[in-house]
């Protein structure tokens, strides 16, 4: 990390540049989600839009961490904290895997849909 005034002066240009890149990426994220011509995958929101949106967000987050938070110059021990923290966070998100391993099982009965309004049961032709 820059420590002398001269070095820091140089660094400031980099910070501005990164800020600009983050601005541009933000516009790209919004454009991908709102401009029909940039709609990936199926029409409207789908998994592809989620993947692209999260990828851009991850790139932005990495830039913030590396440059603004000076991780690119940081000591080893800091990386250890972060790796542990991120692993902890990811494992919590990984818990959502239970939704696939052990899904909620719905009954198969079709009769008596319960609170479905009787008014909606229209005559079959």
């Amino acid at each position, binding site marked *: 990390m820059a420590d002398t*005034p001269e070095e820091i002066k140089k660094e400031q240009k980099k*910070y501005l540049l990164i800020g600009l890149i983050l601005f541009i990426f933000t516009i790209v994220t*919004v454009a991908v*989600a709102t401009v029909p011509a940039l709609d990936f995958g199926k029409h409207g929101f789908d998994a592809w839009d989620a993947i692209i*949106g999260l990828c851009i967000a991850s790139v932005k987050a990495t830039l913030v961490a590396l440059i603004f938070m000076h991780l690119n110059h940081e000591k080893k*021990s800091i990386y250890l904290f*972060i790796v542990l923290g991120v692993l902890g966070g990811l494992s919590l998100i990984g818990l959502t895997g239970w939704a696939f391993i052990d899904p909620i099982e719905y009954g198969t009965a079709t009769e008596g849909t319960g609170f479905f309004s009787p008014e*909606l049961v229209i005559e079959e032709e």
Partner: protein
Amino acid sequence: MEIPYTVTARKDTGLFNAKVGIWLFLASEVMLFGGLFSGYVFLRIYADYPWPERALPVLPGLINTFVLIGSSVTVVFAWAALKMRQWRRFQFFMAITIACAGIFMVLKGLEYNAKWNHQAVRMDDFTIVEGHTHKAVIDEHGHFHEVHEGDDPHGTPFKANAVIFKAERVSFSLVRAHEPWIDSMLSQAEERHSKLGAQKQKGTTGIFLYGALVDFEADADKRKAAEEDIVKEYQTAEKIARKIGERSLYIPDGTPLSYALLKKAREIFIAGRAHNAEIRTGILRTKWKDAHANHPDKGNWEIADEAKITPEDTAGQIVKVISTLAFGMDPPVPLVLNRSWIKRPIPAKAKQAELRDDTTLAGALQDSPLALAVDAVDFRWMAQKAIEADKDPMKVIESSWIFSDKNEHAAEYKKLWKMHKKRIEKLEEHLVEKYKRDKLGNPKRVSTETERYRMGWKDLLQYAKAGEEGVSPGEEKFDDLRPSMTDGFTGPDHKNADVKRLHAFPELKVPHEKVAMASAFTPKWNTYYAIYFTLTGLHGLHVIGGALVLGYYLLFSKGLYRRNPEWLANRVEVGGLFWHFVDLIWIFLFPILYLM
């Protein structure tokens, strides 16, 4: 003792103390937000209702993203200024950072406010309508009248999302009665020239509450004599209550309702309960002692029958406690009950209503529609239910209440729906034209469920404009009539000139029995808003916390700067690290909550 490594780095780790601390803290924060993001994913995967994807207005979120990124740049500039020993420059950039935090919170506040003031209604057939609730008044017969801008209402207007109940008798739980609700009922009764007076029990002249054993409780003749004495002496409207014996209260028939009276009665109820408990405990204690003495070799479970307490044991010793007090309305008048007070659904023609503080009203439910100007009609859930029940969603939608003769505004909705269907038809044609069909002849891209089954506020305004100009979907000009991203900054704009002129947001009166759930866009409306408020609320608290710390450096650090500027630079670096983290979280929150 001086703490080492506040300014210089430790040789083995290469870090100063605060940096180790902040990184450990940030690691724990990653896990905290990781857990909440996990919760979001879970809720979304298993939502049993159509998830409100891309439901929030993008612009405030986008501006907030720019604001936070900008503040991340300025905070690092502030730190760099300290490193270069430029105090003025530090102050300048730090002030901008804190101003950014302020802008962020103001925008967040505007966004929250729009949610809290936006009404959503789920009908019993799963039609969802959103909009702005009207004000209304009721006349002396309890008839509902909407109040519009410029009207001169007779009576106090209320939000037209209430239950109107003509009460003959209201019973209050002494323990749970909620003062503001009682005050509201009292002022409504007064406004309608009615009185709430205590209702006596059969065969008495008033209500006696006994907090402790009064000697005549066991003796009916003595009690009657005492009652007669009291009636002679005290039965006047001014003397609400009078002590007879220790901690007892006499409430003559017709005593006006007040919270103070209920509070006094509660004290006596609690005292009576305490007295009875004491007597029962004493009797039980003696009984168990005796039983143990009679059967020294037996276990507790074998002698339990012998130690049982019976009504005969307590006869003449315990007092009768009253936990509710009933008041009659004379004459019976309609009361406006806020929907949030209601404990359980009140069916049409109900003779009784129960409030969450266990107050029970006996009387008759009046016509209590929920009247609103609708800015969105959403059939997605209905379509989902129809598909689950193996019905054609379009048929189910078109035979629903909103399009039926029972809805006095049905014609407007039919007209809008007709244009909506036409628009979707044209969209589908366009998608086939542009993306073609697959080998099986199915279109490669189709309209989304949201497009098909939901008419949002931008749709409604677009259709109204199209109707005015005689443009129909598919014509080039139709697309130009759509409101842009900058229209309606935090959501549907009911004050928009075009909306008002064209009456673009149609009226609706949802009958009481059709309202399955009514809510503002708060956590109770659905799990999406629950997790939205949790995530953004926690993030907002981080913004406030961060701004406070950075503000402290800005305002109270001149002394430290003079003594030891490097130390201050280290502090600002650590505060800045937290600030970048707050930005980093928002970088994920924005696309997840606003764009997906």
